[in-house]
């Protein structure tokens, strides 16, 4: 069955059920979204719409877009999902986000891959954010790969962020499953009074591998950052997580990384703190291990079977 999403804009074609499933999973889209959007399918623009306050334009010399949000833009959202099902395609984009002063917006990104053959496919996105003074952004990025094909699915996102004075960014970065190889790089610089909340959730299974490298630099006085990493490692999969938080001014920072190991999964977690100012305060906590027996016992004592209890714990942990 072919589902036609009809909307304003240009280059609209039809999306099939798989496309729609991917869009729903990575961007919670079931129809053309309100406000600005840019949907990319198999390395090409599928549909785009700018709004009065949010302009989306193609880059001149390379694949990617520039999203410019006017100062004082409030309560608007931008959807920029990517879907990919073409065998052998490795799609690379560079997207820039310029968020005007005093704005308050939500940006929903994400990439969904469907693999139905032996040929590999993947996506690499470099997202560069520049949040001007007192801008506030909630950024949601989900990655998912589905399909019965044996080809490798790779997702390699890089996110670079500059937060000007008083700006704040709430990042939710989620890898839902099915991705064979992932290398995620996050780099954030916080100026005076800027705030970062970064939550990364990754689930791997079978023989998948995921590597996450984050560097957070608190360079301005009064900046504060909180990074939470939640990993579930099933089957024979491997996850490597490293996060460096460095403080160059009086500021606050915290890294919390938790991993649940199941089956024969392996995990390496390296939280690192570098304090280069005597009035900075950085902390971290990390835990890696199996699901605690006491959690299973509690949920089973409420009537859930062992399997239901495991599922509930994992779902909630990655929520």
């Amino acid at each position, binding site marked *: 069955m072919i589902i036609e999403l009809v909307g304003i804009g240009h280059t609209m074609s039809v999306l099939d059920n798989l496309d729609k499933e991917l869009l729903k999973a990575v961007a919670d889209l079931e129809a053309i979204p309100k406000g600005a959007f840019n949907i990319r399918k198999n390395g090409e623009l599928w549909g785009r719409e700018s709004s009065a306050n949010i302009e989306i334009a193609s880059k001149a010399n390379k694949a990617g877009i520039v999203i410019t949000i006017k100062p004082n833009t409030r309560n608007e959202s931008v959807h920029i999902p990517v879907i990919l099902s073409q065998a052998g395609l490795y799609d690379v984009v560079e997207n820039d986000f310029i968020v005007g002063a005093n704005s308050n917006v939500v940006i929903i990104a994400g990439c969904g891959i469907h693999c139905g053959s032996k040929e590999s496919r993947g996506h690499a996105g470099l997202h560069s954010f520049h949040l001007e003074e007192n801008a506030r952004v909630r950024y949601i990025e989900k990655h998912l790969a589905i399909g019965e094909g044996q080809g490798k699915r790779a997702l390699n996102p890089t996110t670079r962020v500059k937060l000007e004075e008083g700006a704040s960014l709430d990042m939710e970065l989620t890898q839902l499953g099915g991705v064979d190889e992932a290398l995620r790089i996050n780099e954030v610089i916080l100026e005076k009074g800027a705030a970062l909340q970064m939550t990364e959730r990754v689930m791997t299974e079978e023989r998948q591998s995921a590597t996450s490298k984050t560097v957070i630099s608190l360079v301005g006085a009064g900046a504060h950052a909180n990074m939470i990493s939640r990993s579930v490692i099933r089957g024979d999969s491997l996850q490597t997580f490293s996060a460096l938080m460095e403080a160059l001014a009086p500021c606050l920072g915290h890294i919390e990384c938790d991993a649940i190991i199941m089956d024969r999964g392996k995990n390496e977690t390296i939280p690192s703190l570098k304090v280069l100012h005597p009035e900075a305060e950085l902390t971290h906590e990390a835990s890696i291990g199996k699901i605690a027996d006491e959690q299973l016992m509690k949920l089973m*004592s409420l009537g859930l079977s062992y399997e239901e209890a495991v599922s509930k*714990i994992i779902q909630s942990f990655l929520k």
Partner: protein
Amino acid sequence: MLAIEGLRYSVDSNGSRRDIIPNLSYKFSKGKFYAITGPNGSGKTTLAKLIMGIYPASAGSITLAGVKITDMPIHERARAGIAYSFQHPARFKGITFRELIAIAANTNETTDILRLMKRVGICSFAHLNVPVDSKLSGGEIKKIELATTIARNPKIAIYDEPDTGIDLWTIEPMVKLLKNEQQTRGVTTVVVSHNRAFLEAADTVLIMREGSFFFAGTFSAALPYLNDISVCDYRTCGDRTYDECFR
């Protein structure tokens, strides 16, 4: 209601078996309030966990309302009507109080959940969406534990030291709550406790020593034993006599 017959629980200890519960038999009557007390290490929590299926029995049988449950896993015992309140409740990353209550009560209806909270005396609905994690105080998590136990509407409720971490002013309302559940809903209630308030509230006080009940009766009849320090298992402590022992 709940019959225990020849129950034994033993563990490996330096290459040999050591009995924690050697051979215990007892019948808990429907709708009665029991308080199990005794020195540390006497087997109270072990017995409670054997009833819930958290520990497997080495021998003997447990029967609930005529159905043998000795080999049932925890969740089947829960579905059969046993609820358990842990002394040290589990903490979860990501699971909220509301979710736990919803699982316990098997409902997602907000009105049902609010009614339950009122029933267990939790007045602040702000707690509903709070994660049941390490940020909660000991007292808060114990109240949540109690609420999830009551929300099961069980035939028999087992509370393992429900007053742990609870302030002095909350213990009396807690005792009243458990008594009310027993009296109005006919819940057979078993409380493991050292706290006098729970012992006084009980229809039957059971005093445990070395894995056996050596006393079963009313609180007033139990008083001489509760005041007798020789009940303590630790008779010697180096060269000190037992009444000097700090345990």
